[in-house]
């Protein structure tokens, strides 16, 4: 009797699981169709390889998405796709959006992504984007545990000067690179770690050079960025 109950429970569980997986696959398919019909690929690179020359980078209209599933958190993607916000204060390729002011450069007119999907559409597109993974990225590397925030902040602000190019608060920090003060909601910490270790793996011409730090220091930075919410 007991084993029969167990068997029934297992069958019910397996049914739920298969329905869940089935729904997810259906959403991915719908998401793919949406990405195609909305022509996301006209601005975003949906397939690698990344740009290898400056001339190609200067033609870039929007961030590469062919590793979006490794980079982003799905919850954030769903919200962003419904109501996009500015992540890069000076646009995707800052150098295309600056103009000389009186004494210094100023950022011109920069607008966020025009995506305005419904909640269901955003879920479907996010499910599809999450299938686009960087195959060499290790997962489960950055765990949510205690770390020395003070040491990480010294690395971030002083030793490596990250705030020179990234906004670490809504009103301070550099503007040529993505904002980081909300990166904990947006980015997968494992991807942050992998990217920090070698930004050129993802984007050979990105204006963020590789640093020679220990894995421990890269982990501290990834954890600090994950805590920025």
């Amino acid at each position, binding site marked *: 009797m007991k084993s029969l109950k167990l068997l029934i429970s297992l069958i019910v569980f397996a049914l739920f699981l298969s329905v869940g997986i089935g729904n997810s696959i259906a959403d991915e398919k719908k998401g793919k169709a949406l990405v195609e019909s909305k022509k996301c690929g006209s601005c975003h690179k949906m397939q690698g390889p990344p740009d290898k020359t400056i001339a190609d980078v200067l033609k870039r209209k929007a961030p590469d998405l062919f590793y979006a599933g490794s980079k982003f958190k799905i919850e954030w993607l769903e919200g962003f796709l419904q109501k996009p916000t500015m992540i890069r204060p000076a646009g995707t390729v800052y150098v295309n959006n600056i103009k000389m002011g009186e004494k210094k450069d100023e950022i011109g007119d920069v607008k966020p992504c025009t995506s305005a999907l419904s909640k269901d559409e955003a879920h479907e597109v996010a499910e599809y984007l999450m299938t686009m993974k960087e195959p060499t990225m290790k997962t489960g590397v950055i765990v949510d545990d205690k770390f020395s925030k003070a040491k990480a902040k010294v690395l971030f602000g002083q030793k490596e000067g990250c705030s020179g190019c990234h906004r670490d608060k809504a009103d301070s920090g*550099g503007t040529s690179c993505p904002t980081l003060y909300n990166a904990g909601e947006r980015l997968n910490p494992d991807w942050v770690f992998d990217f920090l270790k070698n930004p050129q793996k993802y984007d050979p011409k990105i204006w*963020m050079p590789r640093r020679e730090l220990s894995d421990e220091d890269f982990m501290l930075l990834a954890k600090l960025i994950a805590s920025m919410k």
Partner: protein
Amino acid sequence: MKKVSLMVLSVMFLGLMITPLAVAEKAEDNYKLYCFQCHGSKGSGGGINAAALSTAPRDHTSATEMKKLTDENIFTAIKEGGAAVSKSTFMPPWKSILTDDEIKDMVKYLHGLCKC
């Protein structure tokens, strides 16, 4: 068997011939993409990140400022970062992106900016 090995080797050789090598960029283009962000589009230190830096980026158009540095200083600062020449850590090491030859070209380009 020998024929197959020869064919495989030929295909590998052809592959190597077709694979494009990393493109050496012009100093002007490297300066634009990598240096404008802090040193500004005129090279005078007025980049969009300048306000966020605790040390003002060097004015590359100032002959007075640039004459304080040797070519070796400039090369090392670009390749290894500001800290390597006891300058600002906000100047990162660019060696993962720029080759030694590209950095040498950049040093020449900077002489053009300061006219010195």
